[in-house]
């Protein structure tokens, strides 16, 4: 490794930054929308303890996309079909957390294995092979980008429409059922939306790194906030900053986008964790000063 090469890989394109930015403008928009929606969806992924499910869905989404690539079908459609199949299986069979984890544990390597099989059978451009696993948004075609944005917008709308019942069911499932919330239907609707947004993420950040946009921003937000508006808002902002920031930094050089996105998202989480633990200590100290509680 020599430093001038590294420098060139990271910042070689700075001179033509304006021109590059125009070329990738659609990718930036897609990244922005995914960042926002991914952050919002992530809040429920955290509340419903489904981080592992996100990973499982993304591997089957990858398999679907790889199969589409092999047979010359539309890759976005392939990834969506894979995602939805996985989401449906997990949603129907894995109502309880323990069942769910074992089902995902079984599905995930199978999906990944299938995907690798399809990719090795595929003899097209090799750049496409890697991009499904580790993402390369700037190489996605404009027509497909339009689809990715439209799907993200659909997921956003769906999330808003089921927001309150989904929140009730995620945080307080017993009371939600008692108060007539159709918990099964709400859960399945969420799995459907989750499947769609995972499929979008596979194209933008890659199947292996989907969690950086669907889990990390929400996890970070939950470290520093607890309000019903502040948590999703912060998660969406963190997702947006990670996705857009990552793309904007990456196009200054020749390195892939994903490591930038994952690093920014991770850095935000670390900062939130430090702030959160400092605040916890302060609250705990004041609480024990104010009152000494026996039952806590």
């Amino acid at each position, binding site marked *: 490794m020599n430093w001038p090469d590294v420098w060139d890989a990271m910042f070689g394109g700075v001179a033509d930054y304006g021109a590059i930015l125009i070329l990738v403008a659609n990718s930036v928009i897609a990244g922005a929308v995914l960042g926002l929606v991914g952050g919002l969806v992530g*809040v429920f992924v*955290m*509340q419903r303890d489904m981080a592992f499910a996100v990973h499982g869905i993304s591997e089957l989404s990858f398999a679907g996309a790889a199969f589409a690539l092999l047979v010359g079908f539309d890759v976005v459609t392939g990834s969506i079909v894979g995602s939805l199949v996985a989401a449906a299986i997990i949603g129907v069979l894995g109502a309880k957390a323990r069942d769910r984890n074992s089902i995902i544990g079984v599905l995930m390597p199978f999906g990944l294995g299938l995907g690798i099989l399809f990719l090795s059978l595929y003899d097209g451009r090799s750049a496409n092979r890697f991009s499904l696993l580790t993402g390369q948004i700037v190489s996605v075609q404009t027509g497909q980008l339009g689809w990715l944005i439209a799907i993200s917008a659909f997921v956003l709308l769906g999330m*808003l*429409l*089921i*927001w*309150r*019942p989904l*929140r*009730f069911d995620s*945080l*307080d499932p*017993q*009371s*939600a*059922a*008692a*108060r*007539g*919330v*159709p918990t099964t239907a709400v859960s399945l609707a969420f799995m459907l939306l989750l499947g769609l947004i995972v499929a979008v993420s596979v194209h933008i950040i890659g199947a292996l790194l989907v969690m950086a946009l669907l889990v990390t921003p929400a996890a970070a937000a*939950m470290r520093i*906030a*607890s*309000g*019903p508006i502040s*948590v999703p808002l912060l998660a969406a902002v963190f997702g947006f900053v990670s996705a857009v920031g990552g793309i904007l930094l990456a196009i200054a050089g020749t390195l892939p986008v994903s490591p930038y996105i994952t690093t920014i998202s991770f850095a935000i989480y670390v900062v939130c964790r430090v702030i959160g633990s400092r605040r916890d200590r302060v*609250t705990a100290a004041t*609480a024990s000063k104010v009152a000494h*509680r*026996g*039952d*806590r």
Partner: protein
Amino acid sequence: MTTTPPLEIRGAALQRGDRELWSGLDLTAGSGELIAVLGPSGSGKTTLLRAILGLERLSSGRITALGEEVRGRGNRRIGYIPQQRPLPRDTSLRGRDLVGLGVDGHRFGLPLPRRSDRGRVDRLIDAVGAREFADRPVGMLSGGEQQRLRVGQALADDPQLLLCDEPLTSLDLANQQAVVGLIDRHRKDTGAAVLLVTHDINPLLGKVDRILYIANGRFTLGTPGEVLRSDVLTDLYGAHVFVLRAGDRLVVVGAPDAEESHHHHEEGRE
């Protein structure tokens, strides 16, 4: 107040797998009546409440709640305090949000805040004396504080029927009294009927009107003086059971492993 009683159960039976939890259950709860449901765990007390909510299917008989036969799943007109599980520390929910779930948690559509909802949440918080800690994360609140908020959530729609599942478990004496006081005041103010599952009758003595004691798939119903007697419970359990009076407290001795299986039951709910 209507002439129809808030709750009417006729010839109800419920099966779990091939085991019959209870059968031939008749119970009418009148307006303003507080009925305690006692019995060893696994006797189907929680299941009875869930059947009234329409979350469990009866194998025979019928239940009429608030003038309507129970059919669908869940009922917003019935107040429900589920068996307490302390919320995890990092639950992203403030005290007022827990109450708020009872107000708008069932609504689909764009989650736009309404001023009338906020007013209702504020009134509920005041009614259960939770103002002081309403803006703190629920995971940081004590068991008693969480339980007050749960009562507030259950009262969201001014229910004429209130179902409480072990609302006093793991609370200290002062908090037990406070929660009983809130429930008691609601039924006195609104004439609501209350069905309260508990394993300790003492916090309710002097307030409870009747007791439904379930054991071994059988039950007995009557005033505390009629039910909490050694001969009645011995007959019900089919084993020697003694009801002892210690000062102003009642102690049931010899009831087959109620405490032990109680904990087991709670774990099994996960």
